[in-house]
């Protein structure tokens, strides 16, 4: 397969996944704030977290500096801002551009679903949404991303194109999970006085943001113990957004692409994956205090990002495609 095509499939998939997960974070937030008044500092901090998860710490600072930290602005920034590279609209657009240049490798249905979705979110492109609009869009994003995944799973041969799509998805997930845990962990440390209540709240938000709340409750008590949640989201082997699950599947897929062999050019990526795997084998999350956890998560998030880079180098992929309008 051409590297350029592999690259497009990979970034298409990452951007579909990013659309889905960022939309979920915003949806949860919109539900959460229903019960809090706008004045409550708690709510303010929540928006900090949302922005840090969906964009970056720098962008959050930037927004604060320019005095724009208000709900309506943030929602539009997350949903349809052109400046925000990770706004839903940009992710949907980048995914479509990438699908368009690799569409001879995609099932027609998948292209059809995403193109149709893109054409139907005209409102997002125009910007400035009402609260009702945003709920409607969040729902449509959820359905479109799930449908797209369904088309991939039900109609694609398990060949190289499929593997690159899946690897993109899992790497995006692993990075996102690491980021969410990191952000939540930092905020839980800061909150001082109201530690208990906030922790409960923040860690539940982490589970929800990763769509793991239901799965967690199946095997754990509903008390939100940070250590149990961390070990669930990092090391659980069956939950499809845990870091271990994602990294294992990335490794498996690369191994499929390489026909089970490790060659000189693929040595580095396998080594990096194995190293990260061992990291959480040895780890006893329960023994770390919150400060140590925070350092660990920093390191961990960086390693996840590195794996994405090494993967790109291994297959001559290029850095994120610039969005062109």
């Amino acid at each position, binding site marked *: 397969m051409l590297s350029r095509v592999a690259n497009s499939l990979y970034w298409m998939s990452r951007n579909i996944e990013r659309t889905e997960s960022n939309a979920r974070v915003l949806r949860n937030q919109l539900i959460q704030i229903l019960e809090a008044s706008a004045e409550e500092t708690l709510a303010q901090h929540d928006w900090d977290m949302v922005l840090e998860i969906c964009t970056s710490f720098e962008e959050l600072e930037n927004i604060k500096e320019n005095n724009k930290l208000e709900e309506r602005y943030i929602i539009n920034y997350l949903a349809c801002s052109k400046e925000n590279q990770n706004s839903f609209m940009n992710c949907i657009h980048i995914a479509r551009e990438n699908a368009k240049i690799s*569409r001879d490798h995609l099932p027609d249905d998948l292209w*059809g679903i995403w193109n149709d979705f893109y054409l139907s979110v005209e409102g997002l492109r125009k910007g400035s949404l009402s609260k009702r609009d945003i709920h409607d869009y969040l729902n449509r994003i959820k359905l479109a991303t799930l449908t797209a995944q369904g088309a991939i799973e039900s109609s694609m041969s398990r060949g190289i194109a499929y593997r690159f799509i899946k690897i993109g998805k899992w790497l995006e997930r692993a990075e996102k999970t690491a980021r969410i845990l990191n952000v939540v962990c930092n905020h839980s440390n800061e909150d001082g006085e109201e530690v208990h209540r906030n922790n409960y709240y923040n860690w539940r938000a982490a589970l929800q943001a990763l769509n793991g709340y239901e799965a967690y409750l199946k095997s754990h008590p509903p008390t939100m113990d940070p250590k149990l949640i961390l070990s669930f989201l990092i090391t659980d082997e069956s939950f499809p957004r845990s870091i271990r699950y994602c990294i294992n599947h990335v490794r498996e897929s690369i191994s499929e692409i390489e026909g089970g062999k490790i060659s000189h050019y693929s040595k580095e990526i396998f080594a990096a994956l194995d190293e990260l795997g061992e990291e959480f084998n040895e780890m006893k999350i329960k023994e770390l205090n919150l400060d140590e956890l925070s350092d660990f998560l920093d390191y961990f998030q960086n390693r996840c990002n590195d794996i994405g880079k090494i993967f790109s180098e291994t297959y001559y992929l290029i850095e994120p495609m610039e969005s062109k309008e």
Partner: protein
Amino acid sequence: MFKPYKTEPFYDEMLKSNGGPRKHYTNFHQILQQFSEEELKEKHETAQLSFLRQGITFTVYNENISTERTMPFDFIPVIIPPRDWKKIEKGMIQRTEALNLFLEDIYHEQNILRDGIIPRELIEENPYYYHQQMQGINIPLKNHIFLAGIDLIRDEQGEYHVLEDNLRNPSGMAYVFQNRFVMRQVYPEFFENHSIHTLEHQMPYMHDAVLSHIPPNSESANSPTAVLLTPGMYNSAYYDHVFLAQQMGIELVEGRDLLVKDKLVYMKTIHGLKRVEIIYRRIDDDYLDPVSFRKDSTLGVPGLLEAYQEGNVAILNGIGNGVADDKAIYAFVPDIIRYYLKEDPIISNVKTYQLREPDQREWVLEHLQELVVKNVGASGGYDMLVGPHASEEQIELFRKKIIEEPHQYIAQPTIKLSRAPSFQNARFYPCHVDLRVFVIRGSETHVLPGGLSRVALKEGSLVVNSSQGGGGKDTWVLKGNGSDPSC
């Protein structure tokens, strides 16, 4: 409800001059009567939406802003009876064969120039004559024309004429397939009681034809790697490229995916470099290789021409085909056919005045308001004067242009292009149509049954190009032995 209209002074594809349907349209006409305008309007919208959803669009640029547009689809097909089709098919095979012999001759012995059939300066002054790059090069199968798109029109008697040859990068084949696809999806009722040549089995011909162009220094003559080279997703014909690559199962590559090393062409894959031996390119000659052609081309592949000259790669269509399909050479194609094949043309040309010739120029300048004037180097309906529809200023502008650069223009009588009924904006009206026939040449020559019927949807307009408001129609070639009367 469909009602007949006055057909004169044009030939109508569907109606006789008394308003009744031609024999090969009887069935269709009958089914058409059963639909209300409301139903047809609904179907029309479904059809347009289907093109948009599938992303079958072309990109229009306006002040640097690109918009994706669909080509309007009109559901009333152009139906061609077997006898007419047989003749077209033969005519197209004959014409492309002669044009190919012409190209081979021009880039080798140039007998046709020596024998004085064609004025030498017409070749040597042609900007698409790539003497330096192509002279004396032996190419696979001696075939310069892998895919030709020949545009046909019908005069008031319904006689077919060739309007234009496209031997460089004819586009539109994907639309032939998609028009049929949408027609079958949205208008299944109309196929009842018709027996039509299917398009389902056409792609293997195209695929075989691509693979038959094995370069002299091939390392894998049994399974050469072929690719389709596209300028990329911002090209207006990008959908065409995607479709053909996908249907033939060959890799769709951009210039940046290829590189030339030691005069061999490779593509960059996730597992390193892979040799490429056949390139069906959809990039124009000028942009193909910045080393040998335009230096500023970022679409091409440096060193590609050298690999080609060395016999390490086949390039389809051949380089330098523009010397055979511009509007100045067009006038000589009947002579070309007689010269190489010793046959008379089966499908004739439209009468063409050479403005280089003082006598003809004189006459043309006096009759501009009756004529169509075209720039020999332009296509897509640009730099063209349609005399009967032109203003006084436009005519004067072209008079000046002709006097300044007479060799740059030709003139033709305004052909009364045939019409077919169309249904747009919830009403029926007659529109002018033409037909692009696709000829696929490899070890064997194959003509795609039907082709792309283009329709000028603006009432009274003669310009069918999609960039200027033209649309498409499905084209049905009826099955039969060819002995039935055509109408």
